[in-house]
């Protein structure tokens, strides 16, 4: 029994390594910058959704306010860079730490709420964050911050001639988020989180301090999402409140994991791999007419997938496995 488990863990790791290598080789074949952009966004949202999944999927605290942490990552990096000349790499880490701290400060009152009330609180807080940044003059208010162009440099994490460095960073971030999840799955925290999600009362009776578990999940989740935000800001080279803290980011972090399979190791990656290209392609081929046909198609596809596979896309694989096992 024990061996099965270890073998499954190893198999996941090997699949991930193979996929990562394949992804790393993709730029050899994909020269088109438009497609490269889609790949970068897909990897970024996979990473974000994987991070969101830690708090909302594993620990069961559904957040629709993660745009706040994304924005904090972006703003911390760019404010430190443009105002104090701090390199984006330090800004990125600082953004992560600040986001994690804010997640815990917010968690202190909000983790006492259960179910829907928690979700509502996360939405409201993210909206308040958005309003604050829209009116904060020092941080550029609604006009935002333009990142000064200093030429290609790894030190300043800025590249004008090629998208490839961004691609590899997004890939690395995606691998990191996946690996953290993989590692946490077989850790004390991972078990505590799933227990808290399934039944907080029973978890508490088994020595799990439910409140602290939620705080831990929130901190890890917010940290990783803020790193993603810092990356996005560098990638766009321009940020304003709406473009890094808008509600759509909260949704785009939740959707891939939900569609792929919430609280699973592969759900977020699988969901992002299907959802993000679908978003971009419907937008570029049938969008732009001003009639919103792309959004109708996009929404319909999401509804269809959720109806057919309520457990997420990963259930396609586990179903096949279950059949094989009964034989």
């Amino acid at each position: 029994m024990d061996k099965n488990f270890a073998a499954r863990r190893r198999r996941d790791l090997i699949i991930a390594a193979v996929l990562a290598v394949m992804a790393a080789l993709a730029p050899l074949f994909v020269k088109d910058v438009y497609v490269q952009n889609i790949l970068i966004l897909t990897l970024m949202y996979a990473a974000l959704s994987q991070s969101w999944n830690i708090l909302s999927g594993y620990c069961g605290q559904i957040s629709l306010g993660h745009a706040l942490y994304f924005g904090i990552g972006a703003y911390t990096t760019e404010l430190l860079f443009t105002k104090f000349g701090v390199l984006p790499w330090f800004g990125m880490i600082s953004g992560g730490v600040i986001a994690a701290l804010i997640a815990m400060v917010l968690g202190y009152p909000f983790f006492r709420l259960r179910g829907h009330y928690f979700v509502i609180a996360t939405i409201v807080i993210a909206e308040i964050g958005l309003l604050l940044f829209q009116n904060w003059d020092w941080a550029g208010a609604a006009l935002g911050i333009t990142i000064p162009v200093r030429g290609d440099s790894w030190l300043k994490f800025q590249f004008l001639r090629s998208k490839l460095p961004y691609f590899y960073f997004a890939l690395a971030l995606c691998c990191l988020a996946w690996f953290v999840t993989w590692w946490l799955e077989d850790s004390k925290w991972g078990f505590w989180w799933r227990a808290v999600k399934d039944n907080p009362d029973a978890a508490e009776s088994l020595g799990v301090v439910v409140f602290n578990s939620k705080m831990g999940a929130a901190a890890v989740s917010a940290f990783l999402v803020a790193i993603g935000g810092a990356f996005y800001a560098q990638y766009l080279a321009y940020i304003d409140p709406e473009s890094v803290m808008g509600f759509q980011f909260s949704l785009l972090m939740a959707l891939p994991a939900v569609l792929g399979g919430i609280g699973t190791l592969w759900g977020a990656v699988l969901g992002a791999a299907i959802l993000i290209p679908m978003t971009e392609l419907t937008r570029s081929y049938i969008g732009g007419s001003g009639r919103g046909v792309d959004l109708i198609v996009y929404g319909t596809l999401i509804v269809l997938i959720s109806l057919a596979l309520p457990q997420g896309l990963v259930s396609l694989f586990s179903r096949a496995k279950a059949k094989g096992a009964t034989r």
Partner: protein
Amino acid sequence: MTALLETRGVWQRFGGLVANSDVSISVGRGEIVGLIGPNGAGKSTLFNLIAGVLPPTQGSIWFDGQDVTRMRAAERCQLGVGRTFQVVKSFETMTVVDNVIVGALVRNTVMREARRKAYEVLDFTGLAARAEVLASDLVPAEKRRLEVARALATEPKLLLLDEVLTGLTPTEAQTGVALVRKVRDAGITVLMVEHVMEIVMPLVDRAIVLDLGKVLVEGKPTEVVRDPKVISAYLGDRHAVSA
């Protein structure tokens, strides 16, 4: 030697309702004690106070020589109080063994050890064959068993069983009784709330009868069942007189 568990003058009020009034009981090491009483006697409330779900309105609770009155359930678990729930609370999306690992993590910080401990407990409770099944796929009797397994994995000194034998078929109940004996033989003190008198009476060393939130009678099961006060509490005064 001091008692393992003691409640001293415990009161619990919910608004105007008094669920426990001045309850003082003690449970000695190695005993199986039955907490019985008719519906609404305050058994479950007392049980939850001991487990740490809520603090008593008044009075104190002592465990293993320590005042635990203000301690939360998780802390009491770390001290050695394990419990099951009357309405089973399995972690439904997790496998049986994963459910038990959550409990085992209290005393084992290394995952490998927690996992080994979990399999050991599954063997002990007769669930080993179901280890890899999702908890949601278990039949009710197995779920009860899983509750016990999970609590045992925390390596408790005192195991609180909340109606684990209720609602089972006679055969299932007999296996349950055997399991409780096995637990006691492993050196764990048991306090069990039960409804079904004929099952619980041969099993326990001592019975405490609660009625209307108070301790009515306490003693050997054979004496308790003949006590007129107990009979009247369960069946009404008419029967008590004829007995």
